[in-house]
C-alpha cells in the first residue's frame, strides 16, 4: 500500500455496520439511547446525552453503543472485547439493571428509551467505563488459586478429585469477573471495604475445593469486620450474574462453614496426587509444534 493510499485510509471516518441485518432488512424501529457521559478533564459530574439508534431484530446494547461511537459521536468511551458474553468487559447498568451489553438484546427490553450508565460502586474513568481495580484487588485478596505445600513437588501429577467433589464448586467456576454482582450489591454501595459477592464466592469456591489446603488463610480474611458477615442476603448479586453463578448461595455456605466446620476445614488434608505422571504431551512439546509462520489462507475463488 502506498503512503498516499495509507493516509487516505487513515483519514476516512470509521463506519460501523450493525451486524447481521444491514442491507438484509430494514430497522425495526429507532430507539433513543440515553447514555451517561463524563469527561474527567471537562465535566464536573456525569450527565446523560440522547442518541437515536436504528435497531434490528438482533441488535444488542453493545451494537447500539458502537453505532453511536462510529456514526454519531466518536468521543464515546466503551469497554468491550469478546462480544459474546465470555469476557465480561462490557458490564454496565442498562435500564436500571446490571447487564452485559453484548448479551442484552435491545428489543427484549421493550422500551423506546434505553438508559445506559456505568457500573455502581466503582470509580468512574470516563463515560461508561469504570475502574475495576478495587473489585479485582478484593478478588486477589482471597487468594483465588490452589494453596498447598506440595504444589511444586508434583508438577507432573494430577490431584485426584471425584465428580461429587468437583460438583461442590463447579457452578462457581463460571465467574467471568465482570463486576455486575459487585455493582448490584447493596452492602458494597455503603461499605467500600466489604469484600463483595464475587470475592467471597471465590473464597468459598477454593475453600471447598478438595485439592486445596488454604482454608485457614482464607478464613482469616473473610471472617473480618468487613468480610462475609456484612452480607445481608439481598440476593441482588445472584440476580445480576449473567453466567448463572449464585454468589449469594456461596456466601451463606461460607457463613455455615465458619460457624460449624471451621476446624474440620482448616485441618482437612488436601486431595492426594495421582500415582501416575500426567499423560499426554507436555506444554513444552506443544509449543515446539507451533509453526513459526502460519500458512496463508487460500485465495478466494
Amino acid at each position: 500500500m502506498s503512503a498516499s493510499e495509507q493516509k487516505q485510509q487513515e483519514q476516512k471516518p470509521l463506519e460501523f455496520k450493525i451486524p447481521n441485518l444491514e442491507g438484509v432488512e430494514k430497522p425495526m424501529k429507532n430507539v433513543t439511547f440515553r447514555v451517561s457521559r463524563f469527561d474527567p478533564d471537562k465535566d464536573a459530574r456525569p450527565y446523560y446525552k440522547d442518541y437515536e439508534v436504528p435497531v434490528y431484530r438482533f441488535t444488542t446494547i453493545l451494537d447500539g453503543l458502537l453505532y453511536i461511537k462510529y456514526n454519531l459521536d466518536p468521543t464515546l468511551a466503551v469497554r468491550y472485547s469478546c462480544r459474546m458474553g465470555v469476557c465480561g468487559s462490557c458490564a454496565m447498568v442498562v435500564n436500571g439493571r446490571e447487564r452485559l451489553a453484548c448479551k442484552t438484546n435491545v428489543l427484549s427490553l421493550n422500551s423506546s428509551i434505553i438508559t445506559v450508565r456505568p457500573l455502581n460502586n466503582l470509580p468512574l474513568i470516563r463515560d461508561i467505563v469504570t475502574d475495576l481495580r478495587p473489585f479485582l484487588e478484593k478478588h486477589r485478596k482471597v487468594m483465588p488459586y490452589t494453596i498447598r505445600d506440595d504444589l511444586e513437588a508434583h508438577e507432573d501429577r494430577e490431584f485426584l478429585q471425584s465428580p461429587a467433589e468437583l460438583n461442590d464448586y463447579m457452578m462457581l467456576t463460571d465467574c467471568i469477573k465482570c463486576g455486575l454482582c459487585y455493582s448490584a450489591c447493596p452492602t458494597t454501595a455503603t461499605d467500600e471495604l466489604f469484600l463483595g459477592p464475587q470475592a467471597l464466592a471465590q473464597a468459598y469456591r477454593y475453600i471447598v475445593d478438595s485439592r486445596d489446603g488454604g482454608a485457614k488463610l482464607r478464613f482469616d480474611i473473610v471472617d473480618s469486620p468487613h468480610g462475609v458477615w456484612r452480607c445481608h442476603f439481598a440476593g441482588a448479586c445472584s440476580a445480576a450474574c449473567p453466567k448463572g453463578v449464585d454468589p449469594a448461595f456461596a456466601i451463606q455456605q461460607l457463613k455455615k462453614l465458619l460457624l460449624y466446620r471451621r476446624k474440620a476445614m482448616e485441618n482437612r488434608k488436601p486431595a492426594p496426587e495421582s500415582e501416575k505422571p500426567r499423560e499426554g504431551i507436555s506444554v513444552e512439546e506443544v509449543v515446539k509444534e507451533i509453526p513459526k509462520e502460519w500458512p496463508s489462507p487460500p485465495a478466494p475463488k
Partner: protein
Amino acid sequence: MMVRESTIMWIQYITGLGILVLGALHFASLTFLVQGGYLEALRYKIVISRYTDPLWAAALEAFLALLSYHVFNGFRIMLLEYNQGSGWSKAVNVTMFLAALVVFLYGTRTIITFYLGGVA
C-alpha cells in the same frame, strides 16, 4: 484480644433466638398470664410480685442482657457499614460496648431494686 467476627455474629444469632423466647414470655406476662389482662398486669402490686419472684427476675435479667448485646451489636454493624476507617471502627466498637454496658447496668439496677421490694 481480637474477637473473631464469626464469634460475635454467632452470639448475635443466639441472642436473637433468646430474645424471641424471652420477649414472648415478657409480652405474655403483661397480658394473658395475668387475670384481668393488660390493665391489671401493670398494677404496682402485680409488677412487684413478678420482680420479687427469683425466676421472673432472672428471666428479666437474661432478657436485658440479650437485648443489650443484640441491639448494640446491631447498631455497631450498621455504623460500620455506614462509614469506614480504622478510627471510625475503633470509636464505634468502644462506644457501642460502653452504651450496651450502661444500659445493662442501669436495667440491672432497676431489676435489683424491685427484687428487693421496690421503692417505698
